[in-house]
């Protein structure tokens, strides 16, 4: 039962990352703009993150869904969700109210405290998967 639950969690996180990555991958310009609004990264990093972060989400999402390289995929998932959590938290603390950019052009959520709470749950879920999964 516990294993089934963890597997369901793994698929859920995998699908989430996969969809998020696929939506951002074709439009790095839009994602770069959304990243800029966070005021978190040096400008020169933005285009690189805009191109390669969605690709990483896709790869990690696929690995989680199909359970390939699962330890590495869980590690990346945890790091990714930790990064998202920090980004949204600092935006909320600094009063930067922008779209989260999580799903590219389909992003509708803002970097508010509700989003921080949501990201906290995703981070906890990925942590459970990383530290409790087999």
């Amino acid at each position, binding site marked *: 039962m516990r294993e089934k639950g963890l597997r369901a969690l793994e698929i859920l996180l995998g699908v989430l990352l996969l969809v998020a990555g696929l939506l951002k991958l074709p439009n790095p310009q839009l994602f770069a703009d959304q990243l800029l609004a966070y005021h978190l990264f040096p400008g020169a990093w933005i285009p690189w993150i805009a191109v390669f972060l969605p690709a990483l989400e896709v790869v*990690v999402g696929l*690995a989680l869904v199909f359970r390939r390289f699962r*330890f590495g*995929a869980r590690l990346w998932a945890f790091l990714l969700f930790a990064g998202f959590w920090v980004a949204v938290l600092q935006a909320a603390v600094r009063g930067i109210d922008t779209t989260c950019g999580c799903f590219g052009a389909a992003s509708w959520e803002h970097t508010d405290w509700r989003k921080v709470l949501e990201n906290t749950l995703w981070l906890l879920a990925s942590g459970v998967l*990383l530290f409790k999964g087999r």
Partner: protein
Amino acid sequence: MRWQQALREALFLGLAAVALGAAAHRWLAPSFSLSLAPARLHDLPVIQSLPRPQVPADTAVYLGLRPTLAWLQSGRARAVAAVPVQGLAYWNPDSPETWVGQVLQSGADTGLWILADTALFYRRAWRLQRLLRSLGITRAWVTAVPADSLARLLAQRRTP
């Protein structure tokens, strides 16, 4: 959790992501430059599509967001005094030059114009523009100019 295995697999997945990212960049977004300077990011279609009125030489005013709010409430900008700008626009206390505004007071032409130094805040700018219009401020523009141009503009417009 097998950490050594996890690190090896993570490295492999990272390399796969680099390959996928490079392929996606080449095939899906070849015009997107990885060396894009932040200063060029203001050239977003949404910003370019907005009207860009000329700055009246005699009335442009330096504004940060809080000064903007105070100024809007000062009576010099009566028509927009009630606009809750503070809840809408990002204000960075370390760079008050981020925003410069212009209220054009000539009867029916009353309006607000905000220049942003880049397009960083364009979504918020759209929201501000929509709000102003919903309040009947029909002449409200938000646009972006390159940071260096804005700095020059501010230097010219500040009262000696």
